[in-house]
């Protein structure tokens, strides 16, 4: 039925178009027609392939050959050699820097190996509402394997050996967590899946639950077997209706298939799972708060120790892991701990999912091996900064994380390194900031979030963060003093040192890291009363450049507070005392005569 036997895909992304990919596509089309193959070969212009630095790119299907830096003049050779004679054009193949070999196949290229999907392996490929699809991709084989071939102790050894660490933020070794729960004797134990994803902009857990719910159910049962628990709870925020819907279907199907419930696979092991809904409080992602919430109490953290592994839900040993952590478990068991620990960096094994957002071209959910550099994520996978602006900082770890400057872009990402440079892994939010972002304002934004989401229990978080936010507000309004900067630093340090839970202890990170790396911006706000990025409204002024102004009156007519004066064909003037800094005049001016300072 298919009429075309071959397709030539020409990247039409912004980068490639800039290097004449449109002309290239036209030339290819012409060559194909000239060769009389218009009915057999189709030339297709595509969206960005994400490999802009080597563009323009041409991909040939079904051969899956990948040409780089193709010029319009190369069209003839591609058609005459490759299309007609089936001989790939060697000189246009990609050469990996430092290697001699030319790489022909798209999937062989290291660039496309920057993303490795373990946790997200089934997302976007299987139908999450059909357990058979999951089974067809080895679903529940890991559970079957541990139940029939492994003792709980051997399973714990395997998990420790894999080096898997908690993906919810803390990075605690999962094997040790399971072992602690396993060692505590009790008549009842619980496994909890923490699906209270709360970092602004992070949605990897939701994606996994919506795309591959069975992988989490399977891993929870495996954790149950390892720790001696027969009961699991998934604590999920009620704002995730689709994830809940698919979980409900998945649990029902798993029960019906005998993969949850009594006597799973005839092994005598029983495990069942119940869903508990959270109201979406950020702090309920903290495990003790989460446990209290399940118990029907106010979602507030309590001091640790005791850790949940000793005294958790209903004061029974409890193991709390997050969604992404669980999603890693079945492949680890099927492929072996050595396989898993061969991926990643020395202390952080496997992959991490990041929600890449902000001023980057390809926003999205990416899963990368630990140890990858921030630069690779932002510039290779993310396709660089939007609108050709200058990179300023990347914020990782959500509201508990920090802002990382350009000087640390080549830091390999793992738990320790991110903490060392003043940020953290967190659940995997990654927000890219460019030259138009004011770092003081960014810090203020995150503090506002923390203030809103603080449970209000301990003094440093409840009052301290409020005070931090107030100081930041003062600074952005041009009312800050150098003393304020001292106080910010000191109070931030004390909050980190004294707050009760992880939320409070990390809440000053956005402030402290921006003060560390962007001190000048703070000083500019405080001393010069100036916002270098031009974000803080109170510190902005709009001026008319007399040389550019032709007196067209366009600005005067749009000003909502009528603070611009000037006659036709004469230079206009803005009354600074009345100006509300809305920027309407600047937009209206066709002559670049209005500037913001």
């Amino acid at each position, binding site marked *: 039925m298919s009429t075309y036997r071959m397709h030539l895909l020409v990247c039409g992304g912004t980068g490639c178009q800039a290097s004449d990919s449109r002309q290239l596509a036209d030339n290819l089309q012409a060559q194909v027609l000239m060769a009389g193959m218009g009915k057999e070969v189709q030339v297709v212009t595509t969206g960005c392939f994400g490999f802009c630095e080597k563009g323009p790119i041409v991909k040939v299907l079904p051969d899956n050959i990948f040409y780089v830096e193709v010029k319009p003049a190369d069209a003839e050779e591609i058609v005459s050699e490759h299309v007609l004679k089936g001989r790939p054009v060697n000189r246009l193949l990609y050469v990996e820097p430092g290697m001699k070999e030319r790489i022909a196949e798209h999937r062989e290229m290291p660039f496309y190996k920057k993303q490795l999907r373990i946790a997200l392996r089934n997302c976007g490929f299987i139908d999450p509402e059909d357990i058979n699809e999951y089974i067809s991709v080895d679903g529940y084989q890991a559970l079957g394997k541990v139940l029939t071939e492994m003792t709980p102790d051997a399973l714990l050894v395997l998990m420790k050996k894999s080096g898997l660490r908690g993906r919810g933020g803390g990075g605690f070794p999962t094997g040790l967590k399971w072992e602690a729960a396993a060692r505590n004797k009790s008549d009842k134990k619980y496994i909890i899946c923490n699906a209270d994803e709360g970092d602004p902009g992070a949605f990897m857990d939701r994606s996994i639950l919506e795309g591959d719910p069975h992988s989490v159910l399977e891993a929870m049962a495996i954790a149950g077997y390892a720790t001696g628990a027969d009961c699991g709870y998934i604590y999920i925020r009620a704002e995730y209706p689709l994830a809940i819907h698919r979980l409900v279907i998945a649990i029902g199907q798993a029960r019906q298939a005998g993969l949850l419930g009594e006597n799973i696979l005839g092994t005598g092991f029983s495990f069942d799972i119940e869903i508990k809904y959270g109201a979406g409080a950020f702090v309920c992602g903290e495990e003790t708060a989460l446990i209290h919430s399940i118990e029907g109490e106010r979602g507030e953290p*309590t001091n640790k120790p005791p850790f949940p592994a000793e005294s958790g839900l209903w004061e029974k040993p409890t193991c709390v892991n997050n969604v992404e952590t669980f999603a890693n478990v079945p492949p680890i068991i099927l492929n072996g701990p050595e396989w898993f620990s061969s991926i990643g960096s020395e202390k952080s094994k496997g992959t991490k999912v990041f929600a890449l957002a902000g001023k980057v071209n390809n926003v999205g959910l990416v899963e990368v091996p630990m140890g990858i550099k921030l630069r690779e994520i932002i510039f290779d996978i993310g396709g660089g900064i939007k609108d050709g602006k200058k990179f300023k900082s990347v914020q990782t770890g959500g509201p508990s994380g920090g802002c990382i400057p350009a000087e640390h872009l080549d830091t390999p990402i793992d738990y320790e390194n991110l903490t060392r440079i003043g940020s953290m892994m967190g659940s995997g939010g990654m927000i890219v900031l460019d030259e138009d972002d004011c770092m003081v304002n960014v810090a203020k934004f995150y503090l506002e979030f923390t203030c809103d989401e603080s449970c209000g229990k*301990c003094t*440093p978080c409840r009052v301290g963060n409020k*005070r931090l936010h107030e100081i930041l507000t003062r600074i952005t309004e041009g009312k800050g003093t150098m003393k304020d900067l001292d106080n910010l630093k000191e109070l931030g340090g004390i909050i980190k040192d004294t707050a009760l839970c992880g939320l409070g202890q990390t809440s000053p990170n956005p402030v402290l890291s921006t003060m560390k790396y962007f001190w000048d911006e703070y000083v500019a706000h405080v001393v010069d009363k100036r916002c270098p990025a031009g974000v803080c409204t109170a510190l902005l002024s709009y001026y008319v450049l007399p040389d550019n102004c032709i007196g067209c009156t366009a600005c005067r007519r749009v000003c909502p507070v009528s603070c611009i004066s000037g006659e036709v064909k004469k230079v206009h003037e803005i009354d600074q005392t009345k100006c509300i800094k809305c920027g309407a005049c600047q937009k209206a001016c066709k002559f670049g005569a209005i500037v913001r300072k």
Partner: protein
Amino acid sequence: MRLVTIRINNTEYTVPEHYTILEAAREAKVNIPTLCHMDLGDLKAVNHVASCRVCMVEVEGRRNLAPSCATKVTDGMTIHTNTPRAVKARRTSVELLLSDHPADCLICEKNRSCDLQKLAADLGVRGNLKYKGAMSTYREDISSKSIHRNLDKCILCRRCETMCNEVQTVGILSAVDRGFETVVSPAFGMPMSETMCTFCGQCVAVCPTAALTEISSLRQVWEAINDPDKFVVVQTAPAVRVALGEEFDMEPGTIVTGKMASALRMMGFDRVFDTDFGADLTIIEEASEFIHRLQHGGRLPILTSCCPAWVKFFEHQFQDLLDIPSTCKSPHEMFGAIAKTYYAEKFNIDPKKMVVVSVMPCLAKKYESARPELTGEGFSNVDYVLTTRELGMMIRESGFNFADLEEGEFDNPLGESTGASVIFGATGGVIEAALRTAYEWLTGETLEQVEFHALRGLEGIREATVKIGDLDVKIGVAHGLGNARKLLEAIRRGEVNYHAIEIMACPGGCVGGGGQPYHHGDAEIIKKRTAAIYREDAGKPKRKSHENLQVMKLYKEFLGEFYGEKAHELLHTHYTAREKI
């Protein structure tokens, strides 16, 4: 018990492994300031939220400072309590609390008895606060007769919550909202008067600041005293006399009955009487009721009804058991009823001009005195209720040097009392007093050993079997509403059975009442008051209520039969099923 070795400030100590750092430090006489922490020892009330972050100490090997109140010791732990880092963090926590706290110490209800004020002074917080900003403002709740909530002064220590939810299981107070807006409140911000609050006042008793205080009647009482048209009668509860001295820095457990009577008289009360008289009267009625139920197949167990917080608790929580509590009014209400009838008649005083003031260790009595069934017939049994603390304030206002006052006496005839009435002030006392009388009435024999030690002590629920003639009488005692709930639920399920049960809402009984001088978390104070109560009893020539001659005279001249018609009219009450909200 396993022991571990730790180092605190470079000295080695060996302590049990279940200790917290704070417990270890206190035993080692190392002072670590605390604020939210509270441990009432035998009274089993522990606040371990670790929310204030004042007791922070440095523990070697830990990244962050540790709250000493909530961190258990481990073997080899090295602790530093007074490093610059710890001290600074501690002071910052207090400064932050002060930055959201009205600085009106001089005119604050808790001036000089505020834990926050003391802590700030001890930590040398002086002059300008480093951090300033928005302050919380809430509408004050003065809806009830008992408890004044001023949440601008709340520091979120959550002690009140622990008392309300864990100890009393009433569950009125909990933190709502979050972040800087977090506030301790009844559900939906309901006023206290509309909740299931029993007004036991344990929240007030433990509040470190003036966020929770009593609704004061002090001004009204002074006005009545100074009104020449009014005949003002005062009565004082048994537990007041063993605690009032604390208001004047006397050793807890000092018995100040005489000085108190002198002070009251000097302040201008027309008559100074004793609630103990009402307590003896209560025993006559309650013992009669008990014997009546016992002999006529009435419903058992009989529950005491002296404690108004307990009464409100069962009206809300045990509506199906409303017929088992005794119908006796509480002693001060009985007293009020008698004062305004018998006494007024006898001395030709217009009851409408008579004002009865009760000095009580209690906040619920304030609520009780306003219950409609106790205020009808044109006059209230009791017009005003003052707490022990308010009385202390009145004495200070009067300028008396309390310690130097002479030992006065109560006026008669409503001033006579026996040892049986004194022990009403401690948990187990009411039932012990009732037994002393019931025993003699049922057997016709003299009771030689009047002390029932099995009924005393601080165990939350106690029970004893007392042989009265051929009958084994099973007695239960509970103090603290949580214990009361346990006992009542066991009865409801038919698991236990008793003939008679005494219940007091406050841990320790009235000596630990919500109107008593603040104990600042020191449960030893309550124990000393209890000891004083029993000392006072032991020193009394008469120790059985039915030996109170004035009480007997009251029946002869006025009431007629024990548990008779007139007694019912004046001394008994009824209960109302209340919504569970």
